[in-house]
């Protein structure tokens, strides 16, 4: 039996990795300028091909695909960590208003930098987003300390989301600059405009943080049994909680800093991955969620770019179309089980 599950996990991981690879290639090849697979590979290897195709691939599509891959994975892992923390599968950075908090501070930082004439680097943006997500997070935690019910928390999260969005819109409306279009696009969520310097920063942050999360799998699995039993087997609960919050906040802050708020990935993907693996073991689910999130965002970004080309949809529009039904089905399923 142990052998079988081990083989099953390996198979699913291989398939997922393969799918991620395929969709990365598709994302590179498909677009308003179609580039054949052969040319794409050749230009990636730095050989001949026409200048135009090479530039489109190396400067625009490849960094964008990498961003979708990394940020999608990060978002999904962040959601899984929050679900573990709250011991509730509906928790996620977007639903709890954490992404919106990050969005607000990033918008403020951008507008301030534009009007005062200095530029905020990638790390600065992540820092700003982290501050915003921590503020929303602490608010949610304060509420959860008073009211344990998840429905109240979600309503809180949605309210925080509205308030932050309103303030963000307000700030954007009164900001005066040509970059406003970009800012507007970002505030709806998009992977566009990702450059190589962004990729460098985001890959460092995401890889380190996801690896940290992976190292937490053992205490996380014990934590799933509830505080009493987790403590009984020797988990330092207070430390684990702090780490879960920090790691998930850094992850969602990184996503928001580069791609704006991306909805539903944090809830829908972990749920799908759990159903796929039929387990809740963090050791399996953290890498699983990362691959699942990558795949999901690569697919959604492909659709966002190509469906109404040359007009681009915001990434959240697409993730919501696919993610929200998953969440609704999940809630219905839980309701049925409860009754």
């Amino acid at each position, binding site marked *: 039996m142990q052998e079988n599950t081990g083989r099953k996990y390996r198979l699913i991981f291989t398939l997922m990795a393969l799918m991620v690879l395929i969709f990365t290639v598709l994302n590179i090849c498909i677009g308003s300028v179609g580039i054949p697979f052969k040319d794409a590979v050749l230009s990636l290897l730095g050989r001949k091909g026409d200048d135009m195709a090479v530039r489109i691939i190396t400067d625009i599509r490849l960094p964008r695909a990498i961003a979708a891959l990394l940020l999608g994975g990060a978002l999904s892992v962040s959601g899984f960590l929050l679900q573990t923390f709250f011991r509730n599968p509906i928790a996620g950075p977007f639903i709890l208003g954490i992404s919106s908090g990050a969005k607000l501070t990033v918008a403020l930082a951008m507008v301030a930098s534009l009007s005062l004439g200095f530029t905020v680097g990638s790390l600065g943006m992540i820092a700003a987003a982290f501050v915003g997500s921590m503020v929303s997070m602490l608010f949610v935690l304060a509420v959860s300390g008073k009211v344990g019910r998840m429905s109240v928390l979600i309503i809180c999260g949605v309210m925080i989301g509205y308030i932050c969005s309103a303030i963000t819109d307000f700030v954007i409306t009164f900001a005066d600059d040509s970059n406003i279009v970009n800012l507007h696009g970002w505030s709806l969520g998009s992977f566009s405009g990702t450059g190589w310097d962004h990729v460098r920063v985001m890959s460092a942050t995401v890889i380190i943080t996801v690896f940290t999360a992976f190292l937490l799998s053992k205490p996380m699995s014990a934590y799933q049994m*509830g505080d009493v039993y987790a403590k009984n*087997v020797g988990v330092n609960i207070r430390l684990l909680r702090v780490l879960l919050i920090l790691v998930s906040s850094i992850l969602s802050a990184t996503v928001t800093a580069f791609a704006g708020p991306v909805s539903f990935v944090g809830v829908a993907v972990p749920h799908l991955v759990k159903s796929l693996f039929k387990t809740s073991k963090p050791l399996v689910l953290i890498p699983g969620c990362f691959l699942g999130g990558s795949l999901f965002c690569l697919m959604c970004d492909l659709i966002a770019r190509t469906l109404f080309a040359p007009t681009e949809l915001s990434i959240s529009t697409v993730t919501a179309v696919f993610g929200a039904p998953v969440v609704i089905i999940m809630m219905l399923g839980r309701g049925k089980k409860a009754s």
Partner: protein
Amino acid sequence: MKKKNTENISSYLHTYGMAAGYGGKIVVDGVGLYVNKGEILALIGPNGSGKSTVLRSITGQLELIKGVVFLDGRDMTGIGRHELARKVSLLMTDRIKTELMTCFDVVATARYPYTGSFGLLQDEDRRIVREALKRVNADELSDRDFNLISDGQKQRILLARCIAQEPELIVLDEPTSFLDIRYKIELLQILKDLARDKGTAVIMSMHEVDYARQVSDRVVCIGRKGIDRIGKPDEVLTPGYLCELFGIDREEYVKFFGEDPGFKAGTVNKALQIGYGTHEAGKQAEGGYVAKNGRLLRKGITTGTCAAAAAYGAMKKLLMNEDLERVSLITPSGERVEVDIKPYYGQKHAGDMVNIIQKNDRAGKDAEPVSFCVVKDSGDDPDVTNGAKIIASVGLVDITIKSDNFRNIFTDESHPGILLAGGEGVGRVTGEGLEQPVGYPAINKVPRRMIFEAVDSVRNEAGYEGGILVTVSVEGGEKLADKTFNPQLGIEGGISILGTSGILEPMSDKAIVDTIEVQIRQLAARGKKSLLVTPGLYGQNYVRNELGLSLDDAVKCSNFIGDTIDMAGTYGFEEMLLVGNLGKLIKLAAGIMNTHSRVADGRMDIMCTHLALCGGTSNMVKEMYKCINTDSALDKLKEWGLFDGVMDSILTAIREHTDRRAISALKVTVKVFSEKYGYLGEA
């Protein structure tokens, strides 16, 4: 073969002056309870009396408000999370909700303290999980989703989780509530088996008084005002007392059950203050006597118990200025004894230690060193230490000073800052093979622990964090020591502070065998391969005077010849020479390996048998049978001219029996002599 020293049977968990509650608010105060390994302790009490609070506090889930919990002899706050996780497992009433976890997964979470940094299960872990599932009869649930099984099944799975954690103590909060009768019985039976098979200690709260009566070794009753009674279930759980505990109206009870609860029935001992403390009530509550040879003998206390009680009293005076006259304490064997203590006047700290004692470390308090003593009561089996004054002196010390005077002083990791020294009259170890290193005072491990715990409990109570020097001494100990085994054991200058149970059982055979074992072990440690054994004084004299051998390394085995042969074999001796008089050793010819007359006589029976074997007539046998001792029997043999033949026959029989008893490569030679006829022969 007897195992080496029997396992230490001190309480596995005990609490001192513990107050439990939430957020600094006390729910239950003065909690004193203890449980030994292999025992089940049941907590009984009305809803809201604080049973769960107590359970959470003794398992480290909840911080203590006051007092100390000792686990396996150590203050629990000093035990790390991971180590604690290997010692104590829990089954609480909290409902857990899992997601996509099979019952196997749930049980496997208990392996957390044993797995590596990613928590991957090894084959051994899986085997333990499967075994735990089997123990609770739930193997068939292994692959089922934990969320989808019944409450009764869940409870069994959670119990399997407890078992898979391989704890030494299992704590359960109302494990049987919400279970039907069959599951209740099943679950309690599993706990009973665990306690018996694995020696696991079990503490659980429960509402079902009848089941508690069946399953527990001891019950603790928690009433509205904290711990009310503690004792054997049959003695404590009388209907009358239960009405009182649960606040049931007497008329209601009669109306419902149709009989009077008998408020006066049952002689229950009101629970005493457990642990160390004063108590005005009478003598020992239970078990103060032991039956021996059809006679009730009063038990006594060991020198270790005396020293711990005196140290406690001295500490109370030193730090809290309280004058105690009696200390009630739980001995390591789990029995309560009450010990009278009194102040002892005169400096008892060893001379070179005096200068490290501080006199005014504590603001506003007189911190002159204090000494208390206990007059040792050996019970109805007086030994040389009976009536001796065991003195404990305590004083404040600055432990940050690195002093050369700190040599040969005991310290204990669990009780930092406490130094234990041996004073006048307490022996000093000069030879290898004892519990203590050479140069240290002869204070054994268990008494040491009792003293450390006693001292630390007062230190905690007083909130004092500095160092304490404890010196144990015995008035006239040096002279007393000559009458003990100590000179042979290489302990000089005084008696030993010892006792593994804390209680002296009159005429303890075990104590004698243990002493023989210590001697044999020491000789083995010195690389000896041959052993000289005599049963007693006669043998010793003969060895010295007639055989001209040195008695330095001779072991006195008293009547325990079989045990001695066993131990000689176990410790790898190649030869054993047993020298003794015929009166004792003739019994070996019939395979009687304990030669005490209480065990068997048979001397003349053996004589008669061998006489008949060597051609003695019926009349000779009849005459022989009337002889009163072996010497007169030998007279007859000489007279009949059968002396040599019969002696040969007897010696052959002795050889057969000793050869059969001796294990491994041990070769036993027996030399037999008689007072009157001298050397008789060798087997």
